[in-house]
């Protein structure tokens, strides 16, 4: 997010060796702390406004845009099917880790592990499946979108689109946006399932917990389910918007594509964490 002009401090024009007159510094003084802080906030504000504008324009094109046959299906394949293997591996491992750590933690205060499965499922539905899955997709999908769009910007294909009177948002971002909302929801439900099954097996092997005791659905109530689904939709919308913004604002050659991809990964992950905080806190305050 921060550009590099803050890092290289301008060389101070020192007093001339033999000169008697006061030298006039030809470079502006280095920005002080307040200026840097203000610059950071202005940059943040500008990025937020651009993201909002991109989001609104994408929504407009979702309703009124061109319908290109097969584009959404293609990106659903790109975003969804091609992330499936990665997500399954990661969520399988995280399911095992979470249940193991929760079991160890639980055993220190209570020897009874019978509620482990029910609590784990509630956390999975309400938060963990959506947030960890979305963080993974933010790296996989977000980096992919930024790299594709960024290389199109650098090779002037986006300018060519504009010259053909095709808005790049309509042509590049909108199909990814629709595809991402659908596929992120599907993938997160799948990843929750994978994490749950692997957790069940871990509890069975490590703590001798009967799978029937583990498969206890009584803690999952409608508020948890609703929170989880809202998170799926929010992350599904945020990933293509934030990473598409990073891709469209690429400049420079291959270095620019690299930094755009970096920015996309960082900003998308931050967006997921911030949305998680907002949605979790709201859900806690509403449902208690």
């Amino acid at each position, binding site marked *: 997010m*921060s550009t590099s002009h803050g*890092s290289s401090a301008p060389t101070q024009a020192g007093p001339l060796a033999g000169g008697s007159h006061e030298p006039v510094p030809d470079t502006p003084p280095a920005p002080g702390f307040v200026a840097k802080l203000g610059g950071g906030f202005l940059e943040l504000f500008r990025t937020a406004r651009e993201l909002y504008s991109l989001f609104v324009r994408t929504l407009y094109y979702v309703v009124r845009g061109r319908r290109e046959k097969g584009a959404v299906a293609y990106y659903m394949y790109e975003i969804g099917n091609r992330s499936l*293997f*990665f997500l399954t*591996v*990661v969520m399988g*491992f*995280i399911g*095992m*880790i*979470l249940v*193991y*750590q929760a079991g160890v*933690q639980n055993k*220190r*205060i209570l020897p009874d592990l019978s509620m482990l499965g029910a*609590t784990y499922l509630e*956390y999975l539905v*309400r*938060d963990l499946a959506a*947030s960890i899955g979305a*963080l*993974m997709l933010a*790296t*996989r999908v977000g*980096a*992919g979108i*930024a*790299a*594709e769009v*960024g*290389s199109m910007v*650098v*090779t002037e294909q986006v300018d060519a689109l504009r010259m053909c009177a095709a808005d790049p948002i309509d042509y590049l971002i909108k199909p990814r946006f629709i595809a991402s909302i659908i596929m992120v929801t599907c993938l997160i439900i799948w990843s929750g399932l994978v994490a749950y099954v692997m957790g069940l097996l871990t509890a069975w092997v490590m703590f001798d917990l009967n799978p029937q005791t583990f498969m206890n659905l009584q803690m999952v109530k409608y508020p948890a389910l609703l929170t989880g689904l809202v998170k799926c939709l929010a992350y599904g919308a945020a990933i293509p918007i934030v990473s598409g913004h990073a891709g469209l604002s690429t400049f420079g*050659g*291959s*270095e*620019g*594509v*690299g*930094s*755009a*991809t*970096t920015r996309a*990964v*960082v900003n998308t*992950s*931050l967006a997921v*964490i*911030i949305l*998680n*905080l907002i949605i*979790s*806190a709201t859900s*806690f305050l509403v449902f*208690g």
Partner: protein
Amino acid sequence: MAKSKEVAARSARAVEQKGILHAAGEALLSIAQTTGSMGMVAGRLMSRLVRLRVDRDELFRSLYRMGVKSMPIVVVTALFTGAIVVIQAAPLVQRLQAHALVGWAAGFSTFREIAPLLTALMINGRVGANNTAELGTMVVTEQIDAMRVLAIDPISFLVAPRFLAIVCTLFLATVLADALAILGACGAGMVLIGVSPATFYNSLTGGLIGVGDIMSGLVKSALFGVVIGLSSCHFGLAVTGGAPGVGRAVNATVVASAAGIFVLDYFVSFTL
């Protein structure tokens, strides 16, 4: 003539319609290839690190650009995730009236899993991806070849300092994130469920969390640093094909490090 055309068409179709076995074998081979070449990068790196042939200025520059410049996202991530941990635990705490255990619960999960894992994911996105992009740009613009021409070893001049800087950055950032996540958890506990900081502190230091829990997280973070460093250097040096190639490499390194982090986390969690 017609027959040869038909044969060509059929072979083209055979290439297009890869069977599931073919695809699985190809994926396995590519994973094996990546692991192998990462091992070779690791071997070359070790031979320079053991003999201390690491460029000192480049090391400090890398530490500044990777470590100091990543502080804002580490701070934001740690504060927010600490708060999220407490928000997620809040309904359970209120149901069981377990206010005295909040500090312990937040500390345990933060030290052992959440701080090392999330810091590693953010550093992977910020530093690992950036490192690949920089090395990849140098490869694409033939700067690495130019160094070889000048008889400068690119591994000890460029790659080894970055690798060391990534490992140090992640380790130190995790120490910072541990502290800040606890601060965020304490704040959220105070605001949302009315756990006073004194109660929080007492349950955190009540003896249920040992040095082992913190060390477990820190050992993990050092290993995650090795994974991120190796994969970002490997994918950066293996870039081909101009600006789109750099984008693809960054994508590949981020995905590979994330998968590597989780797989390694599993093994470390079960052995420690």
